[in-house]
């Protein structure tokens, strides 16, 4: 199957079939990273710019590796090293890059809708690598791939997303993705970190962790930004840990074979106890491995590739 889109901007607008196509393609491409020569020619001659206006380790590295393993020519631009510092607008930056003939722009930006804004105005394909608190579609796709590998299907699986929901693009993209794939999703965290009307996204809301993790197949832990406390959203990190931190003791209320996920970077000892992060339930590093495969799949599919053709290479 092909993906008939110029851009990948969010999970909200994807159909279940499109998600399945991406996951299937990712599954086939994943093997390339395990070879002795980790490279295929699918994107040879294509140019990719990674335009990162916010700090990133995993996403930038993962996109860069995906591009290189597909033989694309790529380079990175960040706000601190570009003319953005001189006041150049996002649109001008993007138009200038396009004037040099590029095929893909991978954008990370602090403002929701920034990738959409340039996608509407460029011929190049735009991939959203995280826009403010809106979406982080490739993260959700790599999470879905990790769960699919674990369970085969997501239909009826019970997932709880714990933590700072209001400030999380990962939560939003995962809610869209998980619910489209048939999972049953609960979000859990303090009311001050719960966005208004989130129930309408098809999730249940809980403020009580003990109940929320009971009988769940997956606990998806979100990062707590320490500076949130400053905005008065939390009285203290200490109390947050007591109420919502995922510790081995907490897991006694969870299913025996519960899976722990986290999008990274982890605040060890805050939202996630190191013993859990590194323990037998955690698939956190597996998520990261899948990140490269998913990003390869997206680049491949957006450049016109078909899901069935991959294995022949």
């Amino acid at each position, binding site marked *: 199957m092909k993906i008939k889109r110029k851009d990948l901007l969010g999970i*909200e607008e994807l159909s279940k079939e499109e998600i399945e196509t991406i996951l299937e393609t990712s599954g086939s491409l994943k093997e390339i990273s395990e070879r002795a020569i980790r490279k295929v020619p699918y994107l040879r001659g294509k140019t990719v710019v990674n335009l990162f206006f916010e700090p990133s380790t995993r996403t930038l590295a993962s996109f860069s590796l995906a591009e290189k393993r597909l033989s694309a020519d790529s380079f990175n631009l960040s706000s601190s090293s570009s003319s953005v510092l001189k006041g150049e*607008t*996002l*649109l001008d930056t993007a138009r200038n890059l396009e004037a040099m003939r590029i095929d893909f722009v991978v954008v990370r*930006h602090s*403002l*929701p*809708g*920034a990738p*959409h*804004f340039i996608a509407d105005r460029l011929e190049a394909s735009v991939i959203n690598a995280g*826009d*403010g*608190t*809106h*979406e982080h579609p490739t993260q959700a796709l790599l999470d879905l791939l990790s769960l699919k590998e674990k369970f085969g299907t997501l239909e009826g699986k019970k997932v709880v997303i714990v933590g700072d929901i209001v400030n999380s*693009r990962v939560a*939003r993209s995962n809610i869209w993705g998980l619910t489209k794939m048939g999972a049953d999703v609960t979000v859990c965290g303090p009311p001050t970190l719960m*966005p*208004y*009307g*989130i129930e*309408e*996204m098809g999730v249940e809301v809980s403020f009580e962790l003990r109940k929320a993790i009971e009988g769940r197949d997956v606990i998806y832990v979100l990062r707590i930004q320490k500076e949130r406390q400053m905005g008065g959203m939390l009285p203290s990190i200490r109390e947050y840990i007591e109420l919502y931190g995922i510790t081995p003791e907490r897991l006694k209320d969870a299913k025996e074979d519960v899976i722990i996920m986290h999008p990274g970077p982890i605040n060890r000892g805050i939202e996630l106890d190191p013993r859990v992060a590194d323990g037998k339930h955690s698939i956190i590093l597996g998520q990261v491995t899948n990140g490269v495969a998913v990003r390869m799949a997206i680049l491949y599919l957006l450049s016109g590739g078909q899901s069935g053709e991959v294995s022949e290479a």
Partner: protein
Amino acid sequence: MAKFPKHKFVIRGGRMIDPVQGIDEVTDILIGSGKIEKIGNFSKKNVESLDVKGLVVTPGFIDMHTHLREPGREDEETIETGTKAAAKGGFTGVASMANTNPVIDNSGMVRFIKDRAMQGGYVEVFPIGAVTKGQEGNELTEMFDMVKAGCCAFSDDGKPIDNSLMMRRALEYSQIVGKTIIVHEEDLNLTSDGQINEDFISTKMGLKGMPSIGESTMIARDVEILGFVGGKLHIAHLSVKESLEIVRQAKKRKLDISCEVTPHHIALNSSCLVTFDSNLKMSPPLRSRKDVEVLKKGLQQGVIDCIATDHAPHALFEKEMEFGSAPFGIVGLETALGIVYTELVESGILSIAELVEKMSVNPAKILGLGEKTLKEGSDANITIFDPNKEWTVDVKKFVSKSNNSPFDGWKLKGKGVMTIVKGKIVYREGEFQKLASL
């Protein structure tokens, strides 16, 4: 026949709707020396006559909430271009907001606006002065001096009057001049960093929300202050159902309170925001469907007194940005009548007479501009529009300097045909004439 007859002419065969006199009939109007000389069906030889059969003839519309951007941002709008847009939209006068740069906060600045309007304007301009110096919320302006210079009301619009003591002082002191305090109601703590209405849409889009309580709690506060000290209070761009309920209760208490809504808060709602289009970014933000429903009822029941544009021109280079970086506000003078007619009159919510009350009679009353009527002997400020004219909004054809409108491409019904200010035709079917040029 000249497109712009001078001195004396007859408006012939139009449907005159004058809510003050309770008149809705086909009649001729003789205009001379800037006044309405005669009403009735008559034949007048040697006087030019303009056939307006099938058109509606009403007292001139007043937009009580216009940002003309002069002085300070003449690249976005000037008094000349803003009043031109007003004339085209069927307005014979606009009240200009004080948040220019520098702020209209002294009598000299008020005179500047009046002078510029006199020299280059197409319609009347009624300057609104700032409530506080520099709109900084610390010291009252010289209201008495500014009213002498021609100021019609006071407002720090663009910003709320954050300090409740300052609000009290403003309502007290303005009683010396008997003028209205127009308030932009927003609790900035509740709306900080907000981009759009706080609801499911803001949650989904990851945009920081501006909750309804950011507006309604401030209105509740000011109604209490008004009840305690008196004065005249007008709520600018009311946008949520909770606010409407507070105003309804305040009116029951016989407080001197009034309010306006904008055409865009009637025609659009937060669910229109699917594409991060910055032309849908304004303050207050587009609200929920339910709010829009309730506002329409409020207009019908008369709780909402006025419809005002909040015409807010912005340069394209500033507006064509990521949503979070774009400024708040849209232009409205050239689309207001079409939007209001289509959304409210065509749908049976308001009669034409009620539309005239909300766009002419009531704004004039609140601003102390006298009675808006077509009685013999009154100033000939007249709006003539075609209620059956179907047209498509094309922002490229705007005469405003800015075209930040979400209504581009909308099909509307109802359009201004002729605008007469003090007996002078300033706009007629695509052609303009300055007030001073005659």
